[in-house]
């Protein structure tokens, strides 16, 4: 094996990995994969969690695709702080 590497024969696993990465990036863009919803969800949550206490199980992110218009719906519960107002951390 080492001799083969010395002779410049490439391992096959890195080739598989590269081919998959390129192929899947392409296929995901074709399907318009709801990956986007997952990514948006995570990033939106991170931003809100910086300032408010949220329950991650009570968050709904929904994307509806129409012909001319797509909508993104974010529905989340913010835990009420003791004082009854939302404290924003600066």
């Amino acid at each position, binding site marked *: *094996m080492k001799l083969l590497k010395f002779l410049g024969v490439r*391992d*096959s*696993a*890195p080739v*598989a*990995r590269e*081919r*998959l*990465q390129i*192929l*899947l990036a392409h*296929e*995901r863009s074709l*399907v318009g*994969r*709801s*990956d986007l*919803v*997952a990514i948006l*969800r995570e990033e939106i949550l991170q931003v809100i969690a910086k300032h408010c206490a949220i329950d*991650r199980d009570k*968050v*709904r*992110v*929904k994307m509806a695709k129409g012909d001319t218009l797509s909508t993104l*719906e974010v*529905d989340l519960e913010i835990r009420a702080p003791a004082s009854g107002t939302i404290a924003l951390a600066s």
Partner: protein
Amino acid sequence: MSQVVVVTSGKGGVGKTTSTAAIGAALAQSGQNVVVVDFDVGLRNLDLILGAERRVVYDLVNVIQGHANLSQALIRDKRCETLYLLPASQTRDKDALTEEGVERVIAELRTRFDWVICDSPAGIERGAQLAMRHADLAIIVTNPEVSSVRDSDRIIGLLDSKTVKAERGEWMEKLLLLTRYDHARAQRGDMLKTEDVLEILSIPLLGIIPESQDVLRASNVGAPVTLNNPTSVPAKAYMDAARRLRGEALDVTIPRDKKGIMGMLFGRKAA
């Protein structure tokens, strides 16, 4: 609260049924009430892997069509009394399943069991979509091989769009179960490594199951590997995966046979 889990993959032959049986049995062995449901209508095999093939009287299709009730169709495992099987029909096809029927059966199973584990058929068509429809959590069974990883990626897309949870805008939890892993080959650079598959699919890891003759031996005799040979390497890997499912924070290690010096001298491996 009961959890509905779908074991899915897109590609056939990667170990969905074997994994459903092993994880279902491992959960039941730890005292949980478990039902494993075969959704592969027309090509059922979960009964065979569990050694219950001669005890099937009624099946999922009979229950959905109202020709039998759940209690008549459920088969209790002879070795583990908290493990049940709901078999698929062998003579019908996937069109015999209706969306309302599946919803009703899953709802009823939720009231009786801690875990409802649905063994999905291969493919991305109706049968696979019905199996995942009501799941709270998905186990994606993947081999470290290009076609399996690609199909898993497709299935992840479906889980994020075609399930009840996704339609409600809720987060569908997806966990990777890497099966038929050969550590030596991965080390040599001839097989995708765990990190490669995790990076490409970007979902958390539930477990790594090594390629092992113990798995084949267990299916030969009709017993989940966790019941047939609980001390074997794959059985331990499945048991650890089951513990992680129950919420334990266990580190995932690459399971390996510990060979003695004689084993190293005389041990032979296929391929």
